[in-house]
Structure formats: structure tokens, C-alpha cells
């Protein structure tokens, strides 16, 4: 019932902004498509590095490879699994943040957004811990090269995402987004889910394969 009432509220708000929305509707479509294309291109950037990892791994005589006569250690899969849960959890909280915004519940929106940011930072700290304890280096072998480049790129995306979400949160509370004009929040959510999806691929490729 509550949602039905809110959607009527939403309609009222939308009616107030109707003139703006009329022009805005087109701009939003254009921006959304542009943003989806940006994510696709970014996805292909990851795919290229993933391709290079698969290529190097399948053409190596042994995996993990040998360095100075010693085989390198395997990754700590259980720790990475925990860390993955943190990141996927942040995807769930982000989803609820956007839903709260759509239902005009600003208090819940702020709560879910802060939760997302905290989980994102938690994931980054987990990555930092993993980097310090993994026992391989960037320079030594192709394993290190692929691992640090790919997870580093992903970590950079998470970092940018956290900064982006903080900016979005500040903007939302300053009243930048009104009525149905919340494209920035949609984009932020899409971006955050995209970062999650990339991590699914990386988790399979590095820890489970």
C-alpha cells in the first residue's frame, strides 16, 4: 500500500516539473544511452586485458608459473570470497538506495548510500590487505602482471566509484536532483553494478579457475 501512495506523490511532483520534464525526457534518454555505451567500451577494455591473461595463462608451461626455480603460491581464495561478498553486498545496498530515492524517501536513501560507500571502502581495504599478503610481485611473472594490472584497474574503478557516490550524495542533499530528474543517480547505480559484474569475472578467472 505504501508504495501506491508514494507513487501518487511522485506523480504530483512530476506534474509540477512537467514542462522541464518534457525537454528533460529526451536529454535523459540521450545521456543514458551515452553512459551505457561508455560502460560497454570500458567493459571491452577489461575484456582485452582478460583476453591477454587467458592467452598468457594457457600458453604458460605451468600455472602458477615458476620464479627462480620455485612455483608461486596460489591466491587466498577464501579471503577473496569474503571480500567479494562485501562488494556484492554494496551492489544490493546501492540498489535499495536508488529505490528509496524513487520512492522519495531521502532518509533511507542517505542510509543506503552511506552503507554502499562504507562497503566500497571496505572492499578497497580488503584489496590492500590482499596485495600486501599475496606473495607475488607485479614485475616477476606474467601471473603477477595480469593479476595486479586487472585487479588494480578494477580497484581504481571502485575507488573512482566511491568518490563518485560521495559526490552524488552531496549533490542529492544539496537539491541538485528533483522529481524525475535524477539521471546522475541512475548513472552512479549503473556504474556501481558494472564494477560488481567485472569483479564476478575477475573472481572466477583468478580465484576459481
Amino acid at each position, binding site marked *: 500500500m505504501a508504495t501506491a501512495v508514494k507513487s501518487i506523490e511522485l506523480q504530483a511532483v512530476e506534474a509540477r516539473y512537467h514542462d522541464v520534464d*518534457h*525537454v528533460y525526457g*529526451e536529454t535523459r*534518454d*540521450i545521456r543514458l*544511452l*551515452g553512459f551505457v*555505451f*561508455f560502460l*560497454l*567500451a*570500458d567493459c*571491452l*577494455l577489461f575484456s*582485452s*586485458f582478460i*583476453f*591477454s591473461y587467458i*592467452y*598468457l595463462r594457457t*600458453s*604458460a608451461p605451468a600455472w602458477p*608459473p615458476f620464479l627462480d626455480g620455485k612455483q608461486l603460491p596460489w591466491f587466498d581464495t577464501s579471503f577473496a570470497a569474503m571480500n567479494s561478498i562485501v562488494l556484492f553486498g554494496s551492489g544490493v545496498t546501492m540498489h535499495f538506495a536508488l529505490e528509496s530515492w524513487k520512492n522519495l524517501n531521502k532518509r533511507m536513501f542517505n542510509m543506503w548510500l552511506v552503507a554502499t560507500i562504507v562497503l566500497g571502502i571496505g572492499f578497497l581495504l580488503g584489496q590492500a590487505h590482499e596485495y600486501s599478503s599475496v606473495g607475488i610481485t*607485479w*614485475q*616477476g*611473472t*606474467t601471473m*603477477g*602482471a595480469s593479476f*595486479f*594490472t586487472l585487479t588494480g584497474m578494477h580497484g581504481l574503478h571502485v575507488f573512482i566509484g566511491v568518490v563518485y557516490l560521495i559526490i552524488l550524495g552531496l549533490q542529492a542533499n544539496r537539491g541538485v536532483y528533483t522529481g524525475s530528474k535524477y539521471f546522475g543517480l541512475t548513472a552512479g547505480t549503473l556504474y556501481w553494478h558494472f564494477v560488481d559484474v567485472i569483479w564476478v569475472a575477475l573472481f572466477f578467472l583468478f580465484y576459481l579457475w
Partner: protein
Amino acid sequence: MQTGQTSTHDTHDAHGAADHIHPPPEGFVAKYIFSLDHKVIGFQYFITALLMMMIAGSFAELIRLQLTDPKGAIMSNDTYNVMFSMHGTAMVWLMLIPMVTGALGNFVMPLQIGARDVAFPWLNMVSFWIFPVAAVILFSSLLFGGPHAGWTEYPPISLADGTAGALWCLAIFTIGISSTMTGLNFMVTIIKMRAPGMTWTRMPLFVWATFATALMNMFATVALSAAVGALFIEHVFNVPFFDATRGGSAVLYEHMFWFYSHPAVYIFIIPAFGIVSEVLPTFARKPIFGYKVIAFSSMAIALLSFTVWAHHMFPSGLAPWLQIPFMILTYAIGIPTGIKVFSWVATLWGGRIHYSTSMLYALGFLITFTFGGITGIFLASVPVDLHEHGTYFVVAHFHYVVGGGAVMGFLAAIPYWYPKATGRMMSERLGKLGFWLFFIGLNGTFLPMHWLGLEGMPRRYATYEYFAKAFPDAVFWNRFETAFSFLMVASVGLLVFNAIWSLRHGKIAGINPWGARTLEWTISSPPPYYNFKKIPQVYDRPYDFDKPLPYGNLDNQTEPFPEYGKVVMPVPTPAGA
């Protein structure tokens, strides 16, 4: 017009009216430097790319001068390596791609779809300004000795370049970002911002070509960014991606590089296809033959181009089971290309041909591009390629396709759209002289390379003493090529002179000097900064020269069409009278 179509018309008027146009920006910087206007950005691209063409062209002339003597005439072997690397890099990334996508795509495409600007004008400006920055980074690598491994910069040789190699990677990464953003911008613009009534199959063919190009620009360029990004990491942080002594693979770089760079050659050639598809019907006064197949073969080429990259790598020891499919797919990409060539020839058939400068370039394009395409089919065959890959035959093929295809294409576009861009006509006399210089120069330079290559003259070498002993005519042919290559220099010089001279002294162009039928010819020349006061309504394709213009809602027309714009088809055609 027809009652059935007025509803779209009405809904559009609600927000397409003149009251949404904001006043133009004031001040020199906002107008000409950091402009958001797609037409000004097109000009910026054009001027910068033309400058790059001169720089890269002068590298090419130094290469040609060196080869007038089998021992090498003017420079050390080391300098020669830098020269041909920089020539290739600058021509491909700083001249061709910005010229055909940045300059022509930006200027023409929004006008042809009836839009007031691209979807993201600010992104467009950023894309442009990245380009000169990348050029500065690239040329600054010369201060550190310059890149030595060719425009492909294959490791492990390129890893010896040190700082210069790292700067090369940085420059290509940067220009790649610019290309990707332009591609994204154009895709969204074409998908979302076409004038009402302009369905996909009513778009001008240049727009189709720009769309196919944007698709490749967006999705292929990131693979290049990954390749040069990894190479950069290897240069700077000594991380083993491509270093075979630490488990890396140089062939991996080739895969990543060519996954981009094969689509890249279609990035330069498909806009040229689009230009020719506009120029031929206009000057043959005849509907384009096979509109749909031309449009769809652009898309087919764009999609197939992602599946043929390994034909550049046949000598790299690729497994035979991989070579065969790549050979077959490469043959397959010849099919849509061939369909286009036949459609263009059929467009000319029975037409009333006006030999303007643009038309001459378009006809020259048909000849030289087809020639280059056919040698491409030879090279697609694995056994032939294994023999010819390291010889001048490949150089000849590539320069016929790029010089005789892409460059001829945009040389056709310059006199065609110059009146729209500046309001003045270019001098036809100088233009035609320029065409003959370019056409003869191109063939004189690159045709002998075919037989030199078949005799086994190795490419990329600074000297050819041993080859000249085995094939004494080589010295003559190399000097012949060098002499003819200067005709192309003269032609480009003439073009620049003509473009500057005509700004002042050209005839006033009027709205539609060619009697062409795409939307940009319905507004004043040069177009106002908002392009269309009212967004036009489109009822049909723009190529039926015997019918009235298929547009409604035009308030921009103040001058009548020239007489020859109304010529009715002399032969009965399906579309004819």
C-alpha cells in the same frame, strides 16, 4: 504533405521551435578555441589534421629521398627507422582518423540528420583538445631518440626504445581516448537525434558510414588502448606482458594491436565510402543504385572487420587451424566491399556526369581503391602472404587503399562541402589540376612498388644494396617513385592555397551549389550556429533526383535551386519519370 505523416510533425513542433535556441556565445575563446559548435570543432580538426598531414608527409618524402640511392642517400639507418615509424604513426592516428571522423564526421553528420549539434557537445570539445595534446606527446618522443619499430611498435624491438617508446604508447593511448569518445558521441547522436521521419533507411549514406565508423571507433579502439597501455606498463614498470624471457608473449601484442588496427583501416575507408556515395549520385544526377545494400554493407564491413585481424599475423607462426578461418573471413569481407563498388558503377551508368573536382576525386577513388582492394585479396591468401608480407607489395597495397581510398575520399569531400562550410566555392581550375597531380603522383609512386615487392624488395629497410644487385632496375624505379611522390606534395600545397585563396576570391556559393539533396543543402552557407531554425520533417530518402525534395517544415530556403538540379533522368529507371 501527406496527412498520414503530419502527426509526427506536430509533436515535434512542440519542442523543436525557434524559442529553444539560445544566443550564440560571445568572445573569441568561446567561439573559436573552446567552441562547443560541431562545425567549428570540425574546422579545428580539419586544420590540425592538415598540419599533421604536412608533417607526416614530409617524413614520407625524407624516406623517399633516402631510397634514391641503394646505399641510402641522406640519413643514417637509425634515423630512417624513426622516420618511417613516425610517418606511419602520425598519418594513421593524427591525420587519417581525425580527418575522416573528427573533421568530416563532425561537420557533416549533424547537418545531414537535421540536428542542431551532436549529443554531447562538451565531450566533443574535449575529444578535440585531446588530439593536439597527443600530437605534442608523440612528437616529443623525437627528443628522446624517437620510436624505431614501425607504426606497430611490436615488442621486443620496441622495448629497446626506452623513454621514446613510452611516450609513443602514451600518445596513442591518449588519442585512443579521443577516438573512443568521438565514436560514442556520434553513435548516440545518430541513434537519438535524427530529424523526425528520418528512419534508418532514410538516412544519407554518409551518415550510415559515420555510424559504422563510430561503432568501430568505440569498440575497437579500447583494444588498442589495452595493447599500448600494457606496453606502456612494460616500458615504465618493467612488468612482463610481452617479454618472452619472463613468460610473456610478443604475439599477444600483435593480437591485441591488430584487433584494433584492422578495424582501424575500415575506420578510415568507410567514411570515404560514404563520401563517394554522396558525391556520385549528385554529379551523375541519378539516384544511388542499391541504397540498402550500400548501407548494410557498411555495417557488414564494420562487423566483419572485427573477425579478420589475424591476417596481419600469418608469418608470426599462427597455428594452421587458425590461419584458414582468418583467410576465409578476409575473403568474405571483400564481398560487401565489392557490392559497393558495383553499386557505384551502376549509379554512374546512364547518368549525366558533371566532371567537377569532387567527382574527379570520386572517380579516381573508384579506380585506385578497387586496385588496392584486389591486391588485398591476393594478400589474404596465406601462401601468397607468407611470401609477400615483408616486401614492398604490402606497402603498395596499403598505400593504394589508404592513399587511393581514404585520402582520395576526403579530397573529394573538401571541394564538395567547402561551399557549405565557408559560403564560397573553391576554384575548380586549381582543384582539377590538384586532382591530376595527386592521381598521377599516387600511381607513379605506388604502382612500381608492386613489382619491386614481387621481385623481393624488403620493406622497412634503410638500404637495398643486395636487392639492387639482384634486380638492377630497382634503382631506376625507386628514383621514379621519389620523383612522382613530389607531385602529391604539389597537389596538397595547391589544395591549401586553393582553400585559403577561395575564402576571399571564390564565387559566392548560395544554399545549394551542387543541386544535392541531403539536408545540409537546405540551410544557408555557412550554416547558422543553430543549423536549423525549425527541425525539418523527412519523408523519404534524399537520392531521388527526379522528385521534389522529401522534406517538410523547411523555413530556411530563400534561394531557388540551380537549374541543373532539376534535370530529369535521361533513361528510364525504376525511380525515373
